[in-house]
């Protein structure tokens, strides 16, 4: 019993920090979102749900919401498929495995800002290596069609290693005997994958999806540095829109409203996955 009471003391510092730096600001942001608050011009008045009502007629918001969803679905989908391919082919032991793993980990560990700059340079229409190697003249970051897809590609490059590594760890937990007995029964490798690997890997896949979906949905640095949201806001995600409203014109009311929406969406996504997981 004494243990238990002492336990709280150990939790106290973490609890205090978390409450003060994450929970309190969250309530604060909700409070701000109910205001018309403009720091530049000292305007601050309670406006109820007016900001939320405006969201629905704000084209730019709807556009950003759509961009965010598109980016999330496409990048997470690709990362899962590619990550699975990589994990399956890297799972058996081979010499130099450590170095390969380190190399594969590199994109994940790089500062996002650096990778955005790297890709921005590679995407350059005139002097970019991508156009040169492909022998084309595509304006990757300037065309409304390509820009968001270019951002997806960058994200796939950066986070597929993460996905692959976690899937690999999951694969290693699957008992070898299961494979062996299936092989003895004469099952093909595709059958083994669908009937044994996939079902056993399901919890790990769900965890990966949870992490990645949330991360992709709140994407900020990668796209902010790569395109700044342009052209024509075709790459503007919710986080970028919120940030611009908040810090370019200091509209803390409406900016906080958009930030709240990001929070709520992420909340829904987590609840959805956690439900799936606990089934």
């Amino acid at each position, binding site marked *: 019993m004494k243990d238990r009471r002492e336990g709280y003391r150990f939790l106290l510092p973490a609890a205090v920090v978390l409450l003060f730096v994450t929970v309190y600001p969250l309530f604060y942001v909700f409070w701000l979102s109910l205001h*018309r608050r*403009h*720091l*530049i*011009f*000292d*305007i601050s008045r309670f406006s109820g749900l007016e900001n939320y009502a*405006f969201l629905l007629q704000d*084209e*730019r918001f709807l556009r950003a919401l759509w961009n965010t969803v598109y980016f999330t679905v496409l990048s997470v989908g690709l990362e899962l498929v590619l990550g699975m391919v990589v994990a399956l082919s890297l799972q058996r032991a081979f010499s130099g495995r450590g170095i390969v793993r380190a190399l594969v980990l590199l994109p994940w560990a790089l500062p996002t800002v650096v990778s955005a700059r790297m890709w921005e340079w590679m995407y350059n*229409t*005139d002097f970019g290596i991508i156009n040169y190697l492909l022998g084309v003249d595509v*304006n990757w*970051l*300037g*065309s*409304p069609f390509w820009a968001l897809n270019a951002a997806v590609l960058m994200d796939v490059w950066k986070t597929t290693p993460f996905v692959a590594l976690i899937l690999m760890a999951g694969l290693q937990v699957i008992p070898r005997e299961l494979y062996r007995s299936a092989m003895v029964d004469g099952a093909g490798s595709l059958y083994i994958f669908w009937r044994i690997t996939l079902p056993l890997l399901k919890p790990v896949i769900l965890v990966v999806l949870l992490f990645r979906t949330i991360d992709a949905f709140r994407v900020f640095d990668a796209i902010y540095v790569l395109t*700044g*949201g*342009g*052209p*024509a*806001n*075709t790459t*503007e995600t919710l986080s970028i829109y919120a940030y*611009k409203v908040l*810090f*370019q*014109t*200091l*509209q803390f009311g409406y900016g906080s409203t958009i930030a709240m929406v990001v929070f709520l969406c992420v909340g829904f996504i987590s609840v959805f996955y956690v439900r799936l997981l606990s089934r």
Partner: protein
Amino acid sequence: MPRKPRKRLLKLASLLFLLAVALTSCQTEKREATEETVTIVFKHGKLAGGPEALRAILARFEAENPDIKVKDEVLPASTDEQHQFYVINLEAGSPEFDVLSMDVIWVEEFARAGWLRPLDGIFPPEEREDFFAGPISAVTYQGSVYAIPWYIDAGLLYYRKDLLEKYSMPVPRTWQELVSTAKLIMEKEKDIYGFIWQGKQYEGLVCNVMEYMWSRGGGLIDEDGRFNALKKENIEALQFIYDLIHTYRVSPPLVTTAMEETTRHIFGSGRAIFMRNWPYAWKIFEREGSAVKGKVGVTVLPAFEGYSSAATLGGWQLGVNRYSPHPEAAERLVRYLTSYEVQKEMSIKMGYRPPRRSLYEDEELRRAQPFIVELYPVFERARPRPETPYYMMITQVLQPEFSAAITGLKSPEEALRSIQRQVEYILKLEER
């Protein structure tokens, strides 16, 4: 033995903490005034011609004012990022810088927010008369001036003299002439772009688009001062810009991501016939070793048939931070940097265009920079973007909508209608 890791950890932690404290404090120390001298911090964007030229000018100021030291600090490249820097810091009442350089479109906003020190005392009305009207109106808010114009900018048309001569084409006066001339030359020359300009989603795009609207008799503000984007003239102007890329194909698709330097590089390597840009590019083209040296002509921008040409007013102004701990010293620096002599030096040595009319009569300047002097009428007529404290909110609407219209994501009419609706919402809410 098990004690060790914790001790080491604690030692490391306290060491790092001390370092953090040291990092926090050492900047403040430097700023503290000793008995004889004060240090003032001057924030500005990166200037053309390297830091040495400005350093020399500041060194002279320090020599003339032995009690003042100037520390100049360069801000990030894009004007939007600079604006964000100022807004965040001024809003927080930061005393960390004293003199700041501001784009024409910011002064009203900063003045309305109460972040700038009024400069009526050091910038009397008689002196203002010597300055061009555009910048003076940009630094005036409710009857007081909050900054002094430092240099002036306006949109210009650069063209390849040699190519026009080769095909004996005249310098285009209308946009349609520009298109047909570009097309003709593009057919004969290999690998050359017709007309390049700044179409990335940023403030430069707004400057570009406004020039087409004005030179078609349109614009965003009606004579009665009301915001009115949705009109025939503006639709046609936007449609024409779209057509430059997609119908006439004289502008390559890359213009939709281009900023000033992108186009300057392309034109400077001889790969374009026409370019819209600010005056700064001229001096770079005329440098030794430039691929287009002696081949470049500059003129006023074309207009639509039957209308007159228009250029967007740009340029930078110097103001004093309201929270500056050394306002008098800061004012002295502003006075000095915007003085006749320094503005003259900046135009001769660095190619910046002075906002004082009288300098265009100066013999020495006329001899050294005939190009700049020829621009007098352009500056006299350059037009401001909407002058309102809410400009930064409005331009956040304009930029993406214009970008959507020129890339074909929206029709010009849709884009303008959307602009009208959003800007009305902004103005209505804030004026209440």
